[in-house]
């Protein structure tokens, strides 16, 4: 079971944005702890720590929280009402998301899924993109090939890749199999049903 800590200094908006039923569901999930204040000593006990961005920005603790969680390989979600651009940063360990996405059915359902031990990787992608989460990696795979000169049926010349890219390519191939640019494209279209 993945444990999640949600810290929001405006807790009343949880119910306002989720609506009563979803809010009740969020409260009933035993893998979720909700608080309105940050206790920095407790955050490493959780797999995902979600914090209202303004709270951290106001008390100047972003770097400290980020460093602690990065060191332990934990995920940090910063949610904000002012920012509509959902992004994953810090090598996939941190997400910056809108409050409307964070307090949504999609996210609550995802947190419910984390009660089982089946999901251990790519947590933030799964939260953001749901069943399409693999597309994020397949597009990355396609991008890596495209940037390095691959055509539809040809792989790039290995000499074109630097060490980081080779490592990334190996990781992607290990997870998704060795695929050509064309095959990746087909798989993405299959996932997206287009």
């Amino acid at each position, binding site marked *: 079971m993945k444990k999640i800590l949600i810290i929001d200094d*405006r807790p009343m908006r949880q119910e*306002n944005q989720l609506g009563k039923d979803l809010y009740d569901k969020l409260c009933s999930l035993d893998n979720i702890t909700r608080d309105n204040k940050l206790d920095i000593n407790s955050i490493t006990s959780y797999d995902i720590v979600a914090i209202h961005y303004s709270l951290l920005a106001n008390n100047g603790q972003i770097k400290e929280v980020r460093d602690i969680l990065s060191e332990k390989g934990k995920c940090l979600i910063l949610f904000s009402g002012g*920012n*509509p651009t959902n*992004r994953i940063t810090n090598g996939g360990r941190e997400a910056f998301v809108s409050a409307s996405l964070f307090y949504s059915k999609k996210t609550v359902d995802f947190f419910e899924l984390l009660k089982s031990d089946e999901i251990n990787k790519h947590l933030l992608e799964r939260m953001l*993109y749901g069943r399409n989460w693999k597309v994020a990696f397949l597009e990355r795979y396609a991008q890596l090939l495209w940037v390095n000169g691959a055509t539809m049926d040809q792989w790039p010349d290995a000499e074109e890749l630097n060490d980081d890219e080779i490592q990334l390519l190996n990781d992607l191939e290990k997870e998704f199999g060795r695929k050509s640019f064309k095959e990746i494209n087909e798989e993405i279209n299959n996932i*997206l049903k*287009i």
Partner: protein
Amino acid sequence: MKVLLLHNNNVPFSFISKTWGADVDLTAEIIKPSIDDSDYDIFVSHELERIFSGNTFDLIILPYSFSEYNPIEYTGLVVAAHIRLTPTWKHTKKPILFVGPEEVKQVVKLSEMGSLLFSPGIYTTRTNSLSNLVCGIKDLLTDDITDSEFLEFLNKIHIPRPTNYATHHSIANEWAVMRWTNDIINWGEYEIPSIAFQTFTSMLYFKYLIAKDGSKEQISKNWKKNHGADPKINGISGKKIVYIDDEHEKGWGKLLTRIFEISGAELYIYDKFKEHKDKEELIENITNFVDSIDADCYLLDLRLHDDDFDKNKGEISGHRIAAHIKDYKINRARQVVIFSASDKVWNMKEDVQKIGATDYVLKESPEANFTKNDSVRNFNEFKIAVKKACELSYLKDYLNLLKGTSYEDSFPLNNYIDLALLNSKNVLNSCILNLNLFIEDNADKGFELTDGIHIKKVGSNWKYNILNMIKVKKDNKDGKVLTIECLRDNSESIRYKKTDGWENAKYDDTHRNERRMAKMVASLFYYYGISKTDCKKYLDLRLERNTSVAHEGRLTSLRFEDLKSFFDDIVTKIIMKENPNKKE
């Protein structure tokens, strides 16, 4: 041909490193937010401001995403939309080419902003060959998109609203404050309030609203000078205004401070919203603040707490605070002006009635589609509402004056105040009747002069002839009093015989009304120390009551200002005389 290539090292190396040919002048710029750039719009606006400053490009090339890690966050679409929607960069109509391995249908499926790819002047290619790219772009470099194509783009594009602006209320707050400050107030010689609009003006959604707004109205450069609104609110100098609005930090606080400073009034802003997260605690703190300032006008937003946006969370904070301000036990004449964002005018009208507010002013919203003339009208309505509240605030002082005196429950005075609060010409006649009634009830009394002469009232009769003490000269034409002579030491006119005592005093009984009038004036002048000029006001009021108001059924020609002057100069003195411990 000048080409701008925006990238984050996520395009083929050849695009950046090799020359594109003799006729292509390439500028390559990296778009890479740091981990601390929390607001992508601000980051992009800042970066592109730098890149476009002093530069003109014929074509802009960029990938679908600038992320090193996540290619499906599609920040390239965000950047392209910024370019289209920021006129100051002067590239709103330039062709834009997306490069990348993505198929357009994939992007459209995953991005809310995918419709951008189908708008005029937007091109896509999946080629990763520089030579193919260079060949292809020559066909793209035709002309900029036309005005009608730009409108087509505006109609096609979908820009998601930030969550904080999910309600009409939030967006209107920033929109209106900027509209008033920058667009429609002609500051002239006054210093423009320094409001940092960066967060708002950098916001893609705001740029979109501005573009939509600008597309329906062409404004000349001198418009503000010729048609803008004067920031000064005349007639409120020395007045105190309390402002309660959880959005005050979005520029309203600074803008209103400046407007009231220019107008000679003082503004008191409640600024403890962040310290009181709990609704009940917040309301209690605001009501304490409200009671700590004897303000002439309470400028009140209605939705002051998150719970106020949920219909199931009870009465909204603003209604409860207004109810406190207008509390009968405290002072029902305190003036509330609702200053709020709402897309439902009828709701606001209901609020005004429910609260007993003086007036309401809507913060304009982009959806209202106001022209600049509409916005000027909106600002002028704000000025009129505040001025009206300040003008009526004297009634609050009257209630304060009555409080704790023998007149606190005076029927005619309370009636007069309640009627005057309605601020309608239709109640002026009733106001006159009530003020007259008060004088008749209170000035018709016996008293002792300083030289020991007693004027005594026995039943309905006066045991002393005071008629000869008062001489009144009237205009023969309309019966108005021209002069009053109040005699003091004319022993002949005072037919008082010390030996006879009170019982022998006589009075002329031939002119009943004159006699009654003389008795009132005698009380006002001799007992309450009211000047002859002010006694004349009473006689004029009495004449008005006896003619047009009571018998002729005409609307009086007197104004609220006349009645206020009557209250200040006569009623107040009576109250003070009878309640010597009361401080005016």
